[in-house]
């Protein structure tokens, strides 16, 4: 059972990535009911995307209002029994991040995965994100180097469009696990646009091995007895 909490209030993309952009959130006695995206009801979502009247409506809120909603998302959603709650955040180290960590603290989060592209400019920001984790007591589960190389489907030449290696170097420098490189994969982009299940439907695609390896590392990390 996996829940996804989308705290990117200005740019909520998670609903669309699951094809759930037209779903509504309902209330029950124990709170808001998250949106289930599959028949087996194994994945549930909560996002401000479900609360907007129109999908183009801008959420033009200052910090305090964002903080209040995030607290509600953590406290008032009837998630039920979950094996994993994944929280997707916007870029930065500001209101959303501070509030999310505060609201989740009583629930003892496992930690954070930091995503970067290989470029120095992106790594430069993730270094600051690492400091945020240290300062807020959030364990770093590892770093993912995304958009790491593109293999041309016509001739198989690999081009490092956004450079290469920055994420791995950062992990080494910071002494945190390196979870892997995920290549640019047009099928992955397409799949997310169409709200399809990439892992089920595109097992031969170039990003599949990396993504499943990363998921496996997280699972392996959690199968150990907790301290």
């Amino acid at each position, binding site marked *: 059972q996996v829940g996804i909490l989308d705290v990117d*209030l*200005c*740019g909520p*993309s998670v609903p*669309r*990535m699951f094809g759930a952009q037209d779903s509504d959130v309902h209330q029950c006695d124990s709170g808001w009911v998250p949106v289930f995206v599959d028949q087996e009801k194994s994945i549930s979502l909560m996002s401000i995307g479900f609360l907007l009247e129109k*999908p*183009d*409506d*801008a*959420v*033009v*809120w*200052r*910090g*305090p*209002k*964002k*903080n*209040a909603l995030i607290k509600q998302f953590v406290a008032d959603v009837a998630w039920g029994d979950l094996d994993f709650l994944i929280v997707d955040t*916007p*870029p*930065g*180290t*500001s*209101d959303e*991040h*501070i509030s999310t960590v505060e609201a989740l603290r009583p629930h003892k989060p496992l930690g954070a995965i930091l995503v970067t*592209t290989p*470029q*120095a*400019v*992106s790594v*430069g*920001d993730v*270094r*600051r*994100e*690492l*400091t*945020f984790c240290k*300062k*807020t007591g959030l364990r770093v589960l590892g770093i993912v180097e995304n958009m790491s190389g*593109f293999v*041309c*489907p*016509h*001739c198989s*030449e690999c*081009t*490092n*469009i*956004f*450079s290469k290696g920055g994420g791995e170097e950062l992990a080494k420098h910071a002494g945190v696990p390196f979870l892997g490189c995920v290549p*640019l994969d*047009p099928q992955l*982009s*397409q799949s997310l*646009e*169409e709200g399809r299940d990439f892992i089920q439907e595109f097992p031969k695609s170039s990003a599949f091995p990396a993504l499943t390896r990363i998921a496996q590392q997280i699972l392996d990390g959690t199968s150990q007895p907790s301290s």
Partner: protein
Amino acid sequence: DCPGTSSAQAGRAAACQGCPNQRICAGGAAAPDPAEAAELRERLRSVKHTVLVLSGKGGVGKSTFSALLAQGLAADEAKQVALLDIDICGPSIPKMMGLEGEQVHQSGSGWSPVYVEENLGVMSVGFLLSSPDDAVIWRGPKKNGLIKQFLRDVDWGDIDYLIVDTPPGTSDEHLSIVQYLSAAHIDGAVIITTPQEVSLQDVRKEINFCHKVKLPVIGVVENMSGFVCPKCKNESQIFPPTTGGAEKMCQNLNVSLLGKVPLDPQIGKSCDKGQSFLSEAPESPATSSYRNIIQRIQEYCDQRHFQEEKTI
């Protein structure tokens, strides 16, 4: 008796005294008071044109574009250009401009921008941080305070173009910059996107935001628009425009598509080195796209200036 957290009286009403949230409500304060507004207007009097660079989504190439826009405009040595980076949590501009490690100096007339060229000055919170690992873990009100300082205390001098690079979204930084700059004048906003629907979805919100705060939209730039393999020259759509890309969205919303820029590995390399991609790769198709877009922005600004002069 709480006036409500989004009310104009939030934090200021009699009932707010003693409330634990009072500082939070009052801190999100809106427009600058008349004295502050006058101060900002005076400071920004010497700025001819201001362009905000926005995006709904992160990672679409907004800072890259802001840097190139500033560099492109400053190629004309007769023009004085300023680049203000208000992405307080993720200040990438210093690195992209080759100014990492530089510090800000104070003088009698205020903070000095850091100059890349004689006619291109830059300001960013990055210059105020002593280590590349320093994190700015601030809530909205503190960010707003720094943005106001950037506008009030930086001695920009006479500028032809002030380019403002923003973080992604529609929140404190965006509301604040629009409010503080309302004391002066903003020509408009350029919005950056990739061809993906998940990015366009957020651009529509950004356009919505611009309408709400009466900020003209100069147009949209579609980044990462196709990739030509350097070996076999075949094109791939790495970020497929599944819903028609920026072109269709611009048609539907009646905004200008300023241009489409293809992916080019040299762009990232130049940014990482702090060099101008336009100078390093003059033959790249991406360079001609960027140059065309920059020209269109210049034309837009010149036209508005002309129109305003006519009405005086």
